């Protein structure tokens, strides 16, 4: 049964889910050329931290969520220093062996996938060993709103609002601040950016940290509504990867647009034919999008803009 309000709410829900799942992944991929297959586990860290902060330490929910994002961000920075750039191991090996032992994983897409998958195995299994197959969950806040014979969790509407807010903050950060300018300069031309005095090494570290903390925040935000088990990151992966691929090179705009398009597809097909068909429709949409727009939506927009400039 298709119900207008239902569909709209479901769209908002899918939109928030896709945008939040993809944002951290998109930033790290778009800016650093690193595919983080441990993205799901970064989400896991955020979700577990927030949940444990509420159940064990008794922190208020909002604070616990921020703590979740912060802890994951710090973990991301640690990952970047040790694995992705190899800066710390290389510092040690320079002193002891006199040479680098790790070649940075920047722009080595396949290697970065394999390495971060190794990390993801360690984190998933580590969480299982430390916390068992599930941990106590926090209750969903805010109750539900009802309309007619239906009711809907208000927390999910809050999530949609938060996802839009996060997009705006990220957009502001990367386009309106000094940090954003340096980060974008680093993506466009690393050498020139260095020559202009940008510390590109630090840019990478901070960008990875921001991407990770967004992943952690996603986990913390979804902690009250998904079951807390070590494999919880997996359910974000498909949507995240598809959104990044469909979005294309422009990180924030691409994520927002693909969140909108894919969210509409997911909501419509899930509503009509069930969750499974919704996921299949998502993949088919991604295949079609890649077949006709190999550089994603924002790549296509760029192409249109260029063509219009040329014809003027």
């Amino acid at each position, binding site marked *: 049964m298709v119900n207008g309000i239902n569909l709209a709410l479901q769209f908002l829900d899918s939109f928030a889910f896709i945008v939040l799942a993809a944002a951290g992944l998109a930033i790290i991929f778009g800016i650093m050329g690193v595919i983080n297959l441990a993205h799901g586990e970064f989400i896991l860290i955020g979700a577990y931290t927030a949940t444990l902060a509420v159940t064990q330490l008794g922190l208020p929910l909002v604070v616990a969520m921020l703590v979740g994002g912060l802890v994951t961000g710090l973990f991301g920075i640690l990952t970047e220093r040790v694995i992705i750039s190899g800066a710390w191991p290389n510092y040690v090996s320079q002193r002891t062996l006199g040479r680098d032992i790790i070649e940075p994983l920047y722009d080595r897409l396949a290697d970065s*996938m394999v390495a971060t998958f190794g990390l993801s195995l360690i984190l998933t299994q580590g969480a299982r060993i430390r916390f068992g197959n599930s941990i106590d969950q926090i209750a969903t806040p805010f109750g539900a709103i009802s309309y007619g014979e239906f009711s809907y969790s208000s927390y999910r509407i809050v999530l949609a609002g938060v996802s839009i807010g996060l997009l705006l903050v990220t957009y502001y950060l990367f386009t309106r601040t000094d940090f954003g300018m340096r980060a974008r300069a680093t993506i466009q031309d690393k050498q020139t950016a260095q020559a202009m005095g940008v510390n590109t090494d630090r840019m990478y570290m901070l960008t990875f940290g921001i991407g990770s903390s967004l992943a952690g925040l996603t986990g913390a935000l979804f902690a009250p509504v998904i079951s807390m088990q070590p494999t919880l990151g997996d359910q974000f992966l498909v949507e995240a990867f598809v959104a990044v691929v469909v979005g294309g090179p422009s990180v924030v705009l691409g994520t927002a647009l693909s969140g909108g398009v894919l969210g509409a597809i997911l909501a419509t097909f899930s509503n009509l034919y069930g969750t499974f068909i919704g996921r299949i429709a998502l*993949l088919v949409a991604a295949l079609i999008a890649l077949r006709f727009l190999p550089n994603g939506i924002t790549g296509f927009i760029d192409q249109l803009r260029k063509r219009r400039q040329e014809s003027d």
Partner: protein
Amino acid sequence: MARNSANGEANRSLPGRLRSRFEGPNTIGESRGFWGGFAAAVAALAVYPAFGDSSQLSLFMVLALLGLSLSVVWGYSGVLSFGQVVFFGIGAYTFGVVSINFATPGGITAAVVAGIVGGGLSAAILGYFMFYGGVRDVYVTIITLVSTIVLHTFMAQTAGSEWAIGEAALGGFNGMPDIPLLTLGVGGLSYQFIYNPFPMRVIGIGAFEISPFYYLVLVLLVGTYLALRALVNSDYGRVMVAVREDEDRTEMFGYNVTRVKFVVFTLGGALAGLSGVLYAARNVYIDPTVFSLLFATLPVIWVSIGGRKSLLGAVVATLAIEYLRISMAGELALVLLGTLLLVTILVLPSGLVPWLHEQIVATRLGPGEAGGADTPDAPSEVSD
């Protein structure tokens, strides 16, 4: 290549000429010592069932075929497919469905062929959409990864009775049991390979039973390894490697890069399909865990650790890692596997087997015999 022709002239004898088909710049191991060791290793595998558990080793060898299929697609043509298990699983399920419906020797033989064709065909369809659609690099990886996850979701929900093909119920998470025993041939001229111990009597050792399935898999594995060696050292193999090293430049030289990738991807799919058929036949059972994310990444782990540009590395690493994984079996197994993967990628990006080969060549052979020292290519080469 100059070195190749020099090789051919140096070895005028028949074994020498035969050997040169399997040697070239794209594989390691060209010395007499290597082929001696190779023969010794095959002989050791052939007598192993007399001493150890052959049923477990046969499983590892089936998986080594899957590792080889990824090695040829990723290591030699530069297409990182995270979805080799898609073709593996489709091959396995196709074999199950066809053989349950036609449970005669001829039908089961046809099911084996159907499984291989199923793997190849699904790879061809996916490959057509990707390569002819202009999808490149990491996007190929992401699409294959997503296909794996979607297929896992799909197969997991096929529990209802409406999900049956003929007599074969797909069975959702419960999987598809009662796959007929692997039989090859037609009517009376057929032989059944599983659970059919073959009594052997050797003078001096005594009587023991051997598993025909084990030897079937061993022959297939050695045959596939040698055939792929010949392929990657042929002219076509050189084009494959050129595509891996620099796609645009290869295209500029007039090669049809898209078709090369498409053909290799399809071939890899068919080989993964064969591996899946043998997997389903060995277990007489198949379930959707073959599409799970962990299983999907295992081939990538084997091939990365063994050395992606080395066919031998894929086989050796598959056998070794699966042995470790099964024997560790504890909670820490996956943590250790992840650490091994991480450390190998960071410290030895070209893999363990090529590194070992370099060490052996550097220490065992004198500088005069350095002919075998050529590694497949420069170790500092970047991968994507």
